[in-house]
């Protein structure tokens, strides 16, 4: 089988990828797109038995073959070896399948189910010459996809940030291929008539992906009581999902539904669904194990309650429906939470964050959903606005992008890959807590990020691990939580040195008045750990007016700065702060002693202290003379410097001008 890649002769395509619907549907969607442009003679889907593709692919009319595969990320060494064995077996099976079918193109969705086929396609490259094209749906690719990307001809990513995480540099931003059903302008009326749903009701669709979401399922069951209190009739269409592992989605949810029904009300079986009417007919609840055509239910809905996975959000925004998104927490990089916030900030959805219960199970406060539903029911314009913004947020050019890219790959034409990009914000935030702290401090008061990290902060502060509590302290400072100031002061007494330092810094960020401030500062300045003593001073300076009224404390602070053996950081912070706490002549006497200090930071602090005092207007005529004398006498030479790179400056300037020239 030799080389020339035809696009005028009929081609054979192998599709692979599975495990969850989130992998299967996009590949089927891409296949549909390609069928319109390319002469696809036949297609073959290769998947894993017992997973979502077994349910979904036959319905699409594509032949399905099974191979062995296993996930390998996060496995203990014991489990790793049999898993690798399975992958090897799957690769051999895939080799056989590919040799028999001889495809011209291999399309993979990523996920462990597609890995064996990817490896096999790579191995057979000299023989088959079929380009391997991977499509990555999520912001954060799994380990298998990162690895497989190296073997692929190219990787199409749904989000630009994904190219940062993939090991291959051959990436094209294609967007997410939703099925054509979701691109049609939805006709709410017609859909409701088709489904037999009351036209006047508020229709809420709740689903957690093909496998279902325990969190959403339980949430819906727990808000049943409050649904009757809404000012409109409500119909809920709830897809429990196929479940997975130990979670039997259908069984548990039906059980919870029965339990939630008041005495005398019995759910009735309708086909494979369970229906029940509550609140004297105001609330109609339809619970289904799995909705094959979620598009219809979504078209009929006013509100959609769903997860924040790439596929789900793409489908919802493509169709343009108002969503209440419940991101799944603790995924790598918190990517669902970031997906959700990203959309919410554009006004395209509402977000409810999960909390972690004492038993380790994630849940959403039912009260939050009830309140949200009530407010949305009362404000139909809000729902319409959400729909519009959601529709605007969807990347509609995916069809042209995908078909164009695949055609270029088949014709062996050069492809414009994405250039390197800087680490996306969510990576930098997660690498260092201090970056996250800076990020949060800049967020406006009603930011979604503040809500999200408030939850994480509470959980951290309640943890047994001091490292988690430490992060919680930093977050408390970043979020400016005045109500937590007393708790922070208590943590100062019990915490280790890092925690004590961070408490002081957090209190400084919060800025509010603290009850036992003087006592706290007194203990801080006498602390055995130098960073704690150093952190006491900016806090004292912040509350200068109050501290000045306690001469004993001021004297203790001054003694600490003056002490013969003192860490340079403490002395520097002290010299900066004391300019605002001492009467200026006293400060001059203190600073004078350190005007020739060996450490440049100490001398810089003196100058900064004098400038701070000037700004606040503490300097009288004679004080200014004294300050000038000090500055003139001080040792200014130092090796502490900051480089300027002229060529870099010119470069940045030139880029800026080019960007301007483009715009005009």
């Amino acid at each position, binding site marked *: 089988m030799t080389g020339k890649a035809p696009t005028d002769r009929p081609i054979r395509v192998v599709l692979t990828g599975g495990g969850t619907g989130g992998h299967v549907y996009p590949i089927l969607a891409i296949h549909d797109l390609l069928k319109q442009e390319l002469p696809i003679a036949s297609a073959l889907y290769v998947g894993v038995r017992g997973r979502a593709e077994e349910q979904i692919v036959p319905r699409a009319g594509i032949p399905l073959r099974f191979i062995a595969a296993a996930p390998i990320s996060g496995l203990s060494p014991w489990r790793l070896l049999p898993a690798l064995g399975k992958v090897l077996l799957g690769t051999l099976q895939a080799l056989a399948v590919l040799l028999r079918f001889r495809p011209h193109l291999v399309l993979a969705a990523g996920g462990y189910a597609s890995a064996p086929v990817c490896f096999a396609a790579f191995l057979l490259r000299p023989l088959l010459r079929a380009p391997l094209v991977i499509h990555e749906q999520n912001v954060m690719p799994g380990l298998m996809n990162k690895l497989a990307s190296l073997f692929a001809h190219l990787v199409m990513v749904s989000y630009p940030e994904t190219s*940062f995480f993939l090991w291959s540099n051959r990436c094209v931003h294609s967007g997410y291929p939703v099925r054509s059903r979701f691109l049609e302008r939805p006709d709410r009326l017609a859909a409701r008539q088709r489904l037999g749903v009351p036209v006047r009701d508020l229709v809420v669709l709740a689903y957690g992906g093909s496998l279902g979401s325990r969190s959403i399922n339980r949430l819906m069951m727990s808000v049943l009581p409050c649904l009757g209190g809404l000012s409109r009739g409500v119909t809920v269409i709830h897809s429990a999902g196929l479940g997975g592992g130990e979670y039997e989605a259908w069984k548990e949810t039906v059980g919870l539904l029965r339990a939630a029904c008041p005495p005398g009300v019995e759910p009735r079986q309708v086909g494979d669904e369970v229906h029940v009417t509550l609140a004297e007919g105001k609330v109609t609840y339809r619970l289904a194990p799995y909705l094959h055509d979620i598009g219809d239910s979504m078209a009929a809905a006013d509100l959609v309650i769903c997860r924040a996975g790439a596929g789900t959000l793409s489908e919802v925004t493509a169709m343009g429906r108002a969503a209440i998104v419940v991101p799944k927490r603790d995924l790598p990089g918190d990517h669902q939470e970031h997906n959700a916030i990203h959309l919410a900030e554009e006004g395209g959805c509402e977000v409810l964050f999960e909390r972690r219960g004492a038993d380790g199970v994630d849940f959403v406060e039912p009260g939050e959903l009830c309140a949200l539903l009530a407010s949305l029911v009362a404000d139909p314009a809000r729902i319409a606005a959400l729909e519009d913004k959601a529709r605007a947020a969807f990347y509609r050019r995916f069809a042209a992008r995908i078909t164009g890219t695949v055609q270029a790959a088949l014709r062996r034409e050069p492809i414009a890959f994405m250039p390197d990009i800087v680490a996306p914000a969510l990576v930098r935030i997660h690498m260092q807590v201090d970056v996250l702290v800076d990020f949060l401090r800049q967020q406006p008061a009603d930011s979604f990020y503040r809500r999200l990290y408030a939850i994480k902060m509470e959980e951290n502060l309640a943890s047994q691990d001091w490292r988690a509590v430490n992060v919680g302290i930093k977050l408390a400072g970043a979020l400016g939580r005045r109500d937590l100031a007393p708790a922070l002061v208590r943590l100062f007494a019990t915490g280790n040195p*890092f925690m004590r330092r961070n408490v002081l810094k957090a209190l400084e960020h919060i800025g509010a008045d603290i009850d036992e401030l003087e006592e706290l500062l007194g203990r801080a300045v006498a602390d055995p750990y130098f960073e704690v003593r150093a952190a006491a001073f900016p806090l004292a300076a912040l509350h200068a007016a109050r501290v000045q009224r306690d001469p004993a404390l001021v004297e203790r602070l001054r003694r600490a700065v003056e002490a013969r053996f003192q860490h340079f950081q403490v002395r520097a912070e002290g010299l900066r702060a004391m300019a605002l706490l001492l009467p200026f002549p006293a400060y001059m006497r203190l600073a004078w002693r350190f005007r020739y200090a060996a450490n440049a930071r100490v001398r810089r602090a003196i100058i900064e202290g004098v400038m701070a005092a000037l700004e606040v207007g503490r300097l009288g005529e004679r004080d200014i003379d004294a300050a000038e004398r000090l500055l003139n006498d001080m040792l200014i030479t130092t090796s502490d410097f900051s480089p300027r790179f002229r060529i870099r400056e010119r470069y940045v300037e030139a880029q800026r001008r080019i960007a301007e020239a483009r715009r005009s």
Partner: protein
Amino acid sequence: MVELALSLLRLVGIEHGYFRLVEFITFRVIMAAITSLALSLALGHRIIVWLYRKRFRDAGGEFSSLDMHSKRGTPTGGGVLILLAVVTAVALWGRLDNAYLLAVSAAFVYFGLVGWFDDAQKVRFKSALFGLGQMAKTLLQLAFVVPFGLWLVSEMSPLPPAMRSQILVPFVKTPLGDPGPMVFSAFAMFVFFSVVNAVNITDGLDGLVTGPAVTTALLYGVFAYVLGNAVLSRYLLFTMLPGAGEMAVFAAALAGGMLGFLWFNAYPAEVFMGDTGSLAIGGGLASMALLTRQEMLFPIVGGIFVANIAASLVQEKIGMRIGRRLVLRAPLHHGQTERGIAEPKVVIRFWIIAFLLMLIAGLSLKLR
């Protein structure tokens, strides 16, 4: 290789008086140094451009202080320059049938390749923090260190059998003891692994690692020469290690290559050596230390490396356990910049310390 070429010429009948120069180790040592220096100067700019175009660029350590921010985009992986220069010089001027030389060169090249792989991963991930996973990096290093340790005490080792597992301490004539091949082998592996990582950690400021590395290489080169020379070793009361003198060729080539790299790497750097360079240098120094049986001298002559890894370990293992910093910053050079001393000054100050340490270590040649 030059020797081979000259002997070929001799066979054909071409002969000159000064062909005999090549048989002198000192001549080959100096020529190796000159060759690697000249080669790295000649190739430097081209390699820098090649790395830049291949997108081997420093993504900037997210932890570092503010000035570091301006280092983004500097080509990294410049260790290839050192690798090329040293390997060429050694191939030209070294006796390639010498087991010592081969072992040291193998260590140098192997760790250079591991470092290259790590740098390649880092630039793929476009961030300095994701590279080879910790586990993968350790495994790859151990894949050389373990066989090396075993080889060192085995029958195939070029060291005289009596010397193979003795504990030798500087400034002391008699060996401290002989714990047996197995124990010593484990000790040697530990030393090797620690040295390589110590050098790796020290690569944090422009030109910082070059100073101590050059002084260490030169010192071990001198030791190699002395130990391989019957007259000198007897005079200084060392047991002779026949053939060890050839390692001086490697040491000289390494010093020359690093100085040539320094031409471009000095502050502000136009190229970083990356893990390619620091691991390779670590491998070369560690193997030289073990093969001249002066590994216990390393805490002196390589004191900067040892201090850095000790500080990092203490800060991480103990400091994070009890919840406070124990050293202002680890590695130590960041502590200096934190005090407000400019980066180039810190680098030169560390070179001064390295020079001093080399002198002290040199004392151990005579003072026993």
